[in-house]
């Protein structure tokens, strides 16, 4: 009986997860090494990968810093009433429920060239939608809860007493955070960062809407793959996809490693 279930499970994993990854690798090599290299080194690909890289870095830094602070406030702050905290807490999760396309749409509606704010900024020469800032904003939105959700439970678990002890010994806010709180939430933050990187790397729907997918200007790696598929240049699509997939697998391994450090901290 056991063997049946284990065997079935292996089968499911092989079919659902294993086969697709293998297929991409094969597909990228359809035209041999030159096909693969060509797919990667063409100028649109280089530009798209660079855009993706930029977005990932910006989003990760911003959402980690703000995420950790918000987590601290939502768990510890005395200046937030308990009911307000509960409300904010439930709002934090909202981006998880929003389809990425809708996320992109929201940003376009709010800050697009036809909107009030967008029009004003546009007149000043600042483009948000159909440009990098908009893409960063959209990605910030979808990755918003990730770091917060990892840090909050840990903060709740460690409790306030160690921080109070530090206060009694003369330590103020930053010192207490640096020497007492941070060492204990460190690995959860790392796990949150890895999740954020993975998600911003892979963000597609929101960025597609906000960027307009303009060749050489606002294309990311994922929207380039989309475009390649639409144009039937499958080998090129595969090449970029393989790089993304390899990146994801590497991130996956990092995720598992950080998770285990988190547990044993």
């Amino acid at each position, binding site marked *: 009986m056991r063997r049946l279930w284990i065997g079935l499970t292996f089968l499911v994993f092989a079919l659902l997860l294993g086969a697709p990854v293998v297929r991409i690798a094969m597909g990228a090599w359809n035209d041999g090494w030159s096909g693969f290299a060509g797919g990667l080194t063409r100028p649109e690909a280089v530009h798209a990968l660079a855009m993706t890289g930029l977005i990932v870095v910006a989003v990760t830094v911003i959402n980690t810093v703000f995420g950790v602070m918000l987590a601290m406030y939502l768990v510890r702050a005395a200046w937030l009433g308990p009911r307000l905290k509960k409300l904010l807490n439930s709002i934090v999760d909202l981006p998880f429920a929003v389809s990425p396309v809708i996320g992109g749409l929201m940003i376009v509606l709010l800050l697009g060239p036809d909107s009030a704010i967008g029009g004003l900024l546009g007149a000043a020469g600042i483009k948000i939608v159909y440009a990098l800032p908009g893409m960063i904003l959209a990605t910030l939105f979808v990755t918003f809860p990730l770091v917060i959700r990892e840090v909050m439970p840990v903060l709740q678990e460690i409790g306030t007493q160690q921080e109070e002890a530090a206060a009694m010994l*003369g330590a103020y806010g930053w010192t207490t955070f640096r020497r007492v709180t941070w060492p204990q939430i460190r690995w959860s933050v790392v796990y949150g960062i890895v999740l954020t990187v993975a998600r911003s790397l892979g963000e597609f729907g929101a960025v597609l809407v906000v960027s307009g997918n303009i060749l050489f200007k606002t294309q990311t790696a994922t929207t380039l793959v989309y475009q390649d598929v639409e144009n039937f240049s499958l080998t090129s699509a595969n090449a970029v996809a393989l790089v993304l997939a390899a990146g994801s697998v590497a991130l996956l391994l990092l995720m598992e490693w950080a998770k285990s450090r988190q547990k044993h901290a």
Partner: protein
Amino acid sequence: MHVEVRGLNKRFGEFHAVKNVGFSIAKGQLIGLLGPSGGGKTSILRMLAGLETPDEGDILFHGKRVNDLPPQERGIGFVFQNYALFKHMTVEGNIAFGLEVKKWPKPRIRERVAELVELTGLSGFEKRYPHQLSGGQRQRVAFARALAPEPQLLLLDEPFAAIDAKIRQELRSWLREMIDRLGITSIFVTHDQDEAIEVADEIMIINQGNLEQKGTPWDIYKNPQTPFVASFIGESTIVEDISSLRGFEDARAWPGTRGLIRPEYVEIGKPSEFQILSATETGRVKHLQFRGSEWLVELEVGSTRLVTYRSLEKEVLHPGDEIQVLVHRAYLFNDNDSWIMENKLKEDRTYVEI
């Protein structure tokens, strides 16, 4: 006066946790805050520390008002109930923390840490982490850490609550000795009477936010000022109609007066064991319980149930035995007044061992 508190009040929402508390403590005293859980003792301690702000009232250290001073500046050592050690730091790291914050020069920090490690008997454990220590050891690290920055005042929140009973005794005497040696003013919170009586110079009984009485353990014991204090210390029995007991008939003059009788003031035994037989009345043993160092005897006199102790040296009693009972004194109280009344039939002051 080292620590003075006036008109302290604290509410948590609707709940009035601390009601108009005031007291003063002299330098070098060891004070115990004793009372049932939820009574407000920890709130008072935390307000002294600056971890909570009072709604009303003043807190003064050496005559200076410190209400607005943050906990970081108050120069207080605080020992938490669950130690609150920094889990990711070694014993040394924990102890040195307060000194590093104050930016002491490194050699001086090393010296002080070594001093405290020695003082608290933790030599050899400096490089260990909290999860590698026993409960008693962790508590000692907590003390050392609190004492390192040479505080003026030491506050302890139920320091022994999380410790095994066996070790508790040792740690208690160790704490008493330590604080005496250092001469540091200390206040600790506990709900364990024996602990308070054994360790403290003076005890403050706190119940439902009120300071019921402040005094030496002996004072409180002998002259309880409120019914709560009287019932709280020791295992007393409340007798509804005190005048029914032999020797306390005078209590009839104050109707509605009840009596509180401590086990130590109830003497029982065979007729041969008594000097003033005429003052005794007959009772019956209901139940016996072996307590390791003595017997706990439940008895009945008429319709009144009493509790007392009986030495292991004396003749063993059995349930159902008829015995003579002498109640030496009782603490009487009614709605207006409370006082101690001696058994009128005793002709001389009986010297009672407690």
